């Protein structure tokens, strides 16, 4: 197995499986890992053969988040370097934008396959995904308070939108860790699979998404993201534009024909 911090497997079924690969450090998010993750996301977004992106972790963790060992060695590591306020916060914001932000905006379904612990900044990556599937061994939490930090990688944007503000504020202030069932109860993950067959079950789910109308999926994401910060009037206009684009897609045309002849549509992502 490669010792690169990010592995990418572009499968025949249209799923690109991205694996965070520092198992000896619980896949902690080093600057190198994040840079390679950003590169893999950019490539997956651009490759028309990729119709769904799945992200998981090698070994027993999804990811432990920021690398506390690095922070102990150099206090600047928490922002990936930088001395002045502007430089340090700029470095961290860019690292987050190129990963959390890229997942959130990626115009294809992105699925988190949460095989184990996902805490801190890694929770932000998980939350940015469209769907979260958990192994029965998954554990999720904010954990930032445990190291005296306020949170990054979009966690304060994304968590309240998923679980409501009351639960989100408590999860930040208390640092409580949720198991897979607890995460499902509050809507943080949508399904829990047995740990033994987790990767197979989760990849089968992703393959289903990869057979969908990929361009329309991308526009659904754009509409949902746009709707977060705009008025109903603006959101309606945005939906209308995207609907107009999709009317020109092969997938829409073929599906309309299949519907009229009472057949199952076959989508090619075009």
């Amino acid at each position, binding site marked *: 197995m490669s010792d690169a911090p990010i592995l990418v497997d572009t499968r025949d079924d249209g799923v690109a499986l991205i694996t965070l690969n520092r198992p000896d450090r619980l896949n902690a998010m080093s600057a190198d890992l994040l840079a390679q993750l950003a590169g893999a996301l950019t490539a997956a977004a651009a490759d028309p053969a990729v119709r769904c992106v799945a992200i998981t972790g090698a070994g027993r963790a999804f990811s432990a988040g920021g690398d506390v060992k690095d922070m102990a060695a150099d206090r600047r590591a928490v922002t990936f370097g930088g001395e002045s306020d502007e430089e340090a916060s700029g470095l961290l914001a860019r690292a987050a934008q190129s990963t959390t932000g890229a997942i959130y905006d990626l115009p294809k379904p992105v699925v988190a396959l949460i095989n184990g612990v996902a805490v801190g900044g890694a929770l932000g990556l998980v939350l940015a995904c469209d769907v979260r599937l958990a192994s029965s061994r998954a554990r999720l939490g904010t954990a930032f308070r445990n*190291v005296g930090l306020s949170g990054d990688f979009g966690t*304060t*944007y994304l968590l309240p939108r998923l679980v409501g503000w009351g639960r989100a504020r*408590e999860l930040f202030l208390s640092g409580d860790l949720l198991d897979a069932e607890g995460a499902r109860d509050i809507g943080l993950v949508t399904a829990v699979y047995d740990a033994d067959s987790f990767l197979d079950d989760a990849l089968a789910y992703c393959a289903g998404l990869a057979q969908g109308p990929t361009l329309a999926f991308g526009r659904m994401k754009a509409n949902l993201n746009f709707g977060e910060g705009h008025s109903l009037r603006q959101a309606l206009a945005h939906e209308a534009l995207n609907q107009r684009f999709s009317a020109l897609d092969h997938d829409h045309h073929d599906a309309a024909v299949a519907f009229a002849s009472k057949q199952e549509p076959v989508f090619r992502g075009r």
Partner: protein
Amino acid sequence: MNDTVLVDRRDDGVTLVTLNRPESLNAMNTDLSDALRAALTELADDPAVRCVALTGQGRAFCAGGDVKSMRERSRLEGIGPDGEYHTDVAIRAMQDRQLETSGLLHTMPKPTVALVNGYAIGAGFCFALACDVRLCSEKAKFGMAFRNVGLPGDFGGAYFLPRVVGQGLAREIFFGGEVIDAERARAIGLANHVYPADDFLAEGLAYAGRLAQGPTKALGRMKANLNRSGEGSSLEEVLMSEAINTRMSRDDRDHAGAVEAFIRGDKPVFSGR
């Protein structure tokens, strides 16, 4: 100062604020409202206070605006320097009143916990919603009762409730004015935890005590990030807010101490600095 609000600064860093008009179910008249504003303004800025807990004396948390004096209070608040009533003066006074109660509970840079011991009605419901965490006695009852007195609601209810329970439920709760008991409150995410009535204050204060032992500055910055997010900033804007706040925490003693403790395998001990 009047005695309609009691302030108990405890050794564990928690300050317990008790609404104290039990004979009127702690309904908010001018005295109580003024005392609550003064108390919250002082506690928000005091670094020795590391968590604020809000509760009510007797069988209610807070029954909301005192209906008996409502019309008269609104008239008095609107009287300008010329001795005449002006609607815009009344509205501005109302806005200040809301910002220094609901607003401060939501934004002060330390955890705020509602210990909902009984009825939380109207503005009382809103005070509970403004807090970061809601802990309920099994006797807690919530009601967005504004419709019963022909009002649309104030003290941030329309801001907070959809964010806590979702738009669909929030509209129903506002329109129906139904009473929500503790179990249902927990089921819809309104109550974070429900405790037996007998142990309620002790359990609630123990929870608040744990929050008071956290990295207070980082917790305040979490709230700032979450509030930016709630106020409609984009993901990109929130990522920058998170980054700036993380940069600030990098220099905190609590962060450095916790990193050292983590490496040793110890539990971190936070001083709030």
